[in-house]
């Protein structure tokens, strides 16, 4: 089973972006520093809308930093939660998506396993495994 998990939004001005989402009735659910993604992460929740993950790169080496140049600020990935990461990865590969990251723990999501894939017909997709955690 696979279901929508969150929208990833990149920003270089974290507080300004948070204030705008607060106007949209979002509240901060979590704020962490992700040393793997080299970014400050803030999860925003709204009972009437999808969860938003704000990603603000702390280094030019952050995978998200390149998106700052491209979109300045805004949505750049959608994330889906699946029961079996390997199975879903293989399904996406069969649909011409490309795995572009290692499987790593997501600090903001209780160290659950995540991976990023790219498809020229769909853009950037993150997968998070429902129960499996990377230690």
């Amino acid at each position, binding site marked *: 089973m696979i279901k929508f998990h969150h929208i990833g939004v990149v920003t270089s001005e974290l507080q300004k972006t948070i204030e705008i989402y607060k106007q949209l009735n979002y509240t901060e659910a979590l704020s962490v520093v992700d040393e793997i993604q080299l970014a400050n992460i803030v999860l925003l929740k709204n009972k009437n809308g999808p969860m938003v993950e704000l990603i603000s790169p702390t280094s030019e080496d952050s995978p998200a930093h390149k998106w700052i140049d491209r979109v300045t600020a805004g949505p750049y990935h959608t994330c889906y939660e699946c029961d079996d990461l390997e199975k879903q990865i293989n399904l996406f590969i069969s649909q011409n998506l490309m795995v*572009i990251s290692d499987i790593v723990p997501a600090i903001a999501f209780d160290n659950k396993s995540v991976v990023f894939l790219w498809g020229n017909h769909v853009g950037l997709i993150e997968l998070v495994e429902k129960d499996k955690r990377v230690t």
Partner: protein
Amino acid sequence: MSKGDVMSRKDIILKLQEIFIKVFKTGVTIEDSTSAMDIDNWDSLNHISLLAAIEEEFSIKFTIKEMRSIFKVGDLLDIIESKK
């Protein structure tokens, strides 16, 4: 070319040329030494789009290790050639 035929390096570069035009939206002529230094739009995000287009067109899959080893057209040609 029928299915199962081995592609020559020349065939590969001709096909790559079309993919480069499509991805980078520029008419640059590519050769082994062509790199991101030679094509304005060849940034890290378009690099991913390029690799995805190559995977689809050539029906191959890059490993993450291979992706990280590609810096110029010659690197792409070597990998594609080894898989066709």
